């Protein structure tokens, strides 16, 4: 027999096993508590604003810290416009990349280069992209605005949307590439054996098959776009009015928080900004959850 087995040794063993198991479970509970804490903190800190402003918060278009009147409509509009535009601009590119990497060139050195390039693009920090946009995209937009006779701010909804679309392309592209590569070979071969061209296989077999995956990709990209802060803050012009068109300046929910949070003196001001954060949290969570659920269903 190899070991001495005594009573105290066993007791110590049981204790160690117990501590180990409990630590694991506790860590999982910690995450749950953390998340609840985040939600509750947002809720509780928004109370003063919810109480004072009520539902008007959502449709009031005036945001004036001086008179303590807070309506979030300008920022919700700003967020909606920039995100929607960014999705519209980026989706064709994301689908193109997804087809390129998932269907046309799934292996080989070209695939490697493009894949790494897209990953690299995803890794560039938002603040640097915004910085770059200030010196490259803004002058271009300014020239266009002058030609069109609009006020040549340079910054504004369109500019912010362009940078935003660049930022979310890697995100939706990788997801779309994934679902495209999961199309079963036998379905494609069935179409080829009937004499279809590659384009027709893509159009009539692959795209319909991945439709739900595509919508999940768009949804998740939307979730990302809604929360994007830095690049948007640097390129949207930071005004409190509802943007009227592509070339107007404005603000998004995320950018107004970034701009004004440290200056928010006064309880109501502070609480109103946090309420915007609460709305952001709820909306992005719902969108992400729907997207994740769609993917899970697609995988099974």
């Amino acid at each position, binding site marked *: *027999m*190899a*070991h001495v*087995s005594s009573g105290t040794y*066993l007791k110590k*063993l*049981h204790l160690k096993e117990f501590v180990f198991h409990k630590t694991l479970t506790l860590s999982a509970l910690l995450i749950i508590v953390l998340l609840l804490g985040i939600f509750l903190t947002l809720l509780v800190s928004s109370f003063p604003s919810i109480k004072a402003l009520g539902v008007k918060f959502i449709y009031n278009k005036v945001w004036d810290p001086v008179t303590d009147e807070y309506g979030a409509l300008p920022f919700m509009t700003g967020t909606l416009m920039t995100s929607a535009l960014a999705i519209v601009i980026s989706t064709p590119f994301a689908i193109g990349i997804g087809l390129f990497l998932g269907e046309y060139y799934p292996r080989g050195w070209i695939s490697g280069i493009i894949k790494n390039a897209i990953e690299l693009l995803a890794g560039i920090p938002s603040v640097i992209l915004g910085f770059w946009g200030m010196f490259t995209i803004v002058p271009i937009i300014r020239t266009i605005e002058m030609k069109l006779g609009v006020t040549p701010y340079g910054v504004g909804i369109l500019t912010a949307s362009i940078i935003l679309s660049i930022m979310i392309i890697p995100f939706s592209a990788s997801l779309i590439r994934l679902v495209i590569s999961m199309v079963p070979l036998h379905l494609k071969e069935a179409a080829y054996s009937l004499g279809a061209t590659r384009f027709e296989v893509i159009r009539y077999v692959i795209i319909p098959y991945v439709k739900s995956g595509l919508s999940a990709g768009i949804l998740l990209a939307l979730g990302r776009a809604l929360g994007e802060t830095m690049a948007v803050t640097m390129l949207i012009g930071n005004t409190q009015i509802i943007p009227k068109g592509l070339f107007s300046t404005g603000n998004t929910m995320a950018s107004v928080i970034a701009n004004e949070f440290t200056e928010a003196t006064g309880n109501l001001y502070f609480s109103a900004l946090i309420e915007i954060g609460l709305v952001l949290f709820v909306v992005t969570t719902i969108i992400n959850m729907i997207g994740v659920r769609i993917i899970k269903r697609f995988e099974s």
Partner: protein
Amino acid sequence: MESPILKTVDLNAYFGKTHVLKNVNLEVQKNSITAIMGPSGCGKSTFIRCVNRLHELTEHATSDGQISLNGEDIYKMSPTLLRRKVGMVFQRPNPFNTMSIYQNVIAGYTLNGNILSKTDKDQIVEESLKQAALWNEVKDNLHKKGTFLSGGQQQRLCIARSLAMKPALLLLDEPTSALDPISTSKIEELLLEFKSSYTILIVTHNMQQAGRVSDYTAFFYLGELTEWDKTTTIFTNPKHIQTQNYITGRFG
């Protein structure tokens, strides 16, 4: 007869609601080799996994009945301590691939926090590797990782690792079914050589192997221990029709 090393009384095992072992009553004598045989799915692996209480680690797996090792009820002892007294070698060799050969052999001690002197460790490693007939092939490479070893050598490493613990009972679950014929015969030789120091239970679906190596054979069919006797008796004069059919190759 001396008292048996291992005795099971009315052992039953289940996966959820599926009844995979039915009222198994078996005795294993000291310093003998007992072969556990039967067609696929008859419960052989489940049986030995009950002996070292590995069975209960699977989700929804349960068992009832009595198993005693040297007279002690194994369900009354700590499973960790039980497993130090019972060694197991698996079907696919599974040396720890983050450890060197030396560290693999001594793993049973070091992982359990036993502090041994270097001389003690060296001695245990050499003794175990010699018993597993692997010493000469690896003695100059003890501190390399075992990934360069062939399948047969890796399996002998796993045997050495189990032997290092000086177990009262050694369980082997189809240890040579993944190996080539030469490695297989080397391992069979091993078992015959160290049977005088150990007691061995070997699950095998290879009848010739059972015939070559074992003193006793236990035959399982659909979860029941239908027959158990000296190997020579089972092979020449089986009492049950299933045993006879299996031996003559009617099913396998």
